[in-house]
């Protein structure tokens, strides 16, 4: 049995004393305080804290997370293990863990999952409150909550969708960077004529789900009411948004967007073909690391890419974002330890390291961290600290829940939008069909 005192000394051992002291000074409550206040867990080397996450788009981000986990493991005197699965395979793996009630302690979750798995995740209200208080609050209110408003997961980071735009092409036709969706369409029309279409997926892809929701919101439409239960997609605003998507597709895009998945728009931009895409900064980052060149020139693509805010529609500027959360399974035997790790991970110092390692890809929900030096390090990240004002989680304006997750997974919005864009249905019919499908799913989940 280890006493609280020993625990503290172990925590502030020679290897980590300095960093630890700094971090505990910087934050109002550090690991030590927390550990002192509670009875320490029965520690032995046979205990293992295990975390599962998806393979991050930026490998160094995974490496940093692993380093933090190991550092924490050393301090707490437990073994640690971090496993990764491919991004699209995370849901399957989580399903198998929950079905078996066995597996990891900590788990990365997507936005609808805290509600989906609310019976299997421990309540993190107190931890979110504590971390939130010392980090200046969150930029989003609904992420990580279940239907009753309890936090089932810690809001972790979000991956936003700015426009990545080829500034050189826009300058060539004497335009300015687009501010509204109408600008996007006008500029896109001209650039498509020159062989540089814009690229927004209308397919079974995550990006399509995000962007099309953003467009609907920007026109004043919404998928559901604020209660998160009443389907409200069938409105004149949504129909207009669908009409716009159709016009945008016909005027400024190519047929291939109907088959794109999340990676195709990156390729399209980095190969010098696309003039604009809506995508996280991964396109820019990979152009930089791969040193992609504009075709026929020696000019790196990343030099001529810039990011701007998602465009505004008649009802303002709204965009969806991939919110990631991290939770603790109820079946975990190391719940307290897992919470301590979260507390440790959400200290300013560790958070900043994690953000740095992700090369600006992760964006924090905690206000204090959003002014991170990395966003100042590259002028192309300037949008990052502010884009949180315009982004919402997919269930918005309701909380993300099982029904909204199902609507997402069955790609109802992209499919109906694609049907409308390819003239299989009128905008009205498409919206009506989406409404029917959504009503069916919401009825089932109510």
């Amino acid at each position: 049995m280890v006493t609280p005192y020993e625990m503290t000394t172990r925590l502030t051992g020679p290897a980590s004393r300095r960093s630890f002291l700094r971090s505990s000074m910087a934050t109002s409550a550090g690991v030590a305080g927390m550990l002192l206040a509670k009875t320490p867990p029965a520690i032995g080397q046979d205990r293992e804290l295990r975390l599962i996450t998806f393979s991050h788009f930026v490998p160094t981000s995974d490496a940093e997370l692993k380093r933090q986990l190991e550092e924490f493991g050393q301090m707490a005197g437990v073994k640690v293990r971090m496993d990764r699965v491919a991004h699209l395979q995370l849901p399957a793996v989580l399903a198998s863990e929950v079905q078996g009630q066995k597996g990891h302690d900590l788990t990365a979750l997507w936005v609808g999952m805290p509600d989906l798995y609310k019976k299997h995740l421990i309540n993190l209200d107190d931890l979110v409150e504590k971390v939130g208080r010392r980090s200046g609050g969150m930029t989003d209110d609904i992420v990580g909550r279940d239907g009753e408003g309890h936090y089932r997961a810690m809001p972790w980071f979000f991956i936003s969708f700015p426009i990545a735009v080829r500034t050189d092409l826009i300058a060539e036709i004497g335009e300015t960077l687009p501010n509204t969706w109408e600008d996007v369409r006008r500029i896109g029309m001209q650039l498509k004529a020159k062989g540089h279409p814009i690229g927004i997926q209308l397919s079974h892809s995550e990006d399509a789900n995000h962007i099309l929701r953003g467009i609907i919101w920007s026109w004043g439409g919404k998928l559901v009411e604020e209660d998160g239960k009443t389907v409200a997609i069938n409105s004149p605003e949504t129909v207009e948004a669908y009409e716009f998507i159709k016009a945008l597709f016909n005027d400024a895009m190519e047929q291939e967007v109907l088959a794109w998945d999340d990676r195709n728009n990156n390729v399209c931009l980095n190969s010098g073909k696309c003039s604009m895409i809506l995508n996280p900064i991964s396109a820019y980052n990979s152009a930089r690391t791969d040193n992609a060149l504009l075709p026929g020139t020696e000019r790196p693509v990343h030099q001529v890419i810039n990011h701007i805010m998602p465009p505004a529609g008649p009802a303002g500027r709204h965009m969806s974002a991939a919110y990631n959360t991290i939770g603790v399974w109820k079946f975990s035997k190391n719940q307290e330890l897992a919470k301590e790790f979260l507390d440790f991970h959400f200290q300013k110092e560790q958070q900043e390291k994690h953000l740095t390692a992700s090369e600006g890809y992760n964006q924090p929900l905690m206000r204090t961290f959003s002014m991170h030096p990395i966003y100042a390090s590259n002028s192309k990240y300037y949008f990052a600290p502010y884009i949180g004002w315009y982004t919402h989680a997919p269930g918005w304006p309701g909380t993300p829940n099982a029904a909204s997750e199902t609507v997402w997974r069955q790609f109802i919005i992209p499919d109906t939008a694609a049907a409308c864009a390819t003239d299989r249905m009128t905008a009205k019919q498409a919206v009506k069909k989406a409404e029917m499908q959504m009503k069916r799913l919401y009825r089932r989940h109510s």
Partner: protein
Amino acid sequence: MAISNTREQVLVGRDLTAANRQRWRRSLGPDLDGYGFVLPAVIIMACLVVYPFFLAIWFSLSDAVIGEPGQWVGLENFMYLFGIMYEGEDLPWYLKFRGFSWDLSLADDIFLMTLRNTLLFAIFSVVLKGVFGLGAALLMQRATKMKRFIRGSILVPFVAPTVLTTLGWWLILDPTYSHINWLLANAWPLNLLGLGPYQWLGNPNLALSSVIFVNFWRGMPFFAVTIFAGLVAIPEQLYEAAETDGASTLRKFWHVTLPLLRPVMAVVILFSTIFTLADFGIVYVLTRGGPMNYTHLFATYSFTVGILNQEIGLGAAISLFLFPILLLVVILQLKMVRKETGYGV
């Protein structure tokens, strides 16, 4: 079981139990050790197939979600898929009957698409595999030089890991890279035709065709090699006899080769149908069910519903639809095999 006889009971008296046991034992057959031989297989299949299978049936009759056992809901999952409901609220009277209402427009339209896709997918790809597999088998029989290379190469699609080769096809069909479109645009003389670019995975019908094509690519070798094995087994004398009767090549093929290949064909079609109907990897990698659900198959849709949306109950109901279809195919096929050759299973 032996039924005990009263007179015997009286006569045999105390040997009764022993006699019964013996009779019972005899009724089990002469080779009692047979039970020992099948025991390992029975245990494995019972634990890892039969039990999970019944569990899946239970799931389909319950509202189970991931991690929760669920409650018995009867056929509600199946009713949901077809749009049958208990007393639809605002339906016209002619859609309501006996406490139920049936409005196909309320059915799970993705499921209906899945049904359509799976049937098209299976029929087309099995037919393609059959026709071209037969062709490949005939050619393999005739090619005497470089035998090993030719047979090996034809088998490659079947033996290389499916998911990985499908990734290769993805690169070939990919909307951005599309090697085929590149050929159509840049390679002489194809570029003169002015075709393309085609949306191999973006156009609904082309996407289904692409998925069928990749499945065909993967499954054809199985047909080729098995039919080839069947060809080898046809006795040469039959051809010689036909030749002395002055039969033409086509007639020989029609009257000797095909009838004798019938049992092989039946078996290989059966197996291929099973593989094809249950295919998962190709669609999972290539299209994820898109565009507009025109390529969802039972396996992928039940994966989406059962795993991604956590509704195991509904997911199991969807994949159970596969079972009667398969059973039907099997019964038909077995009837055919039995009739043709007298061999049974």
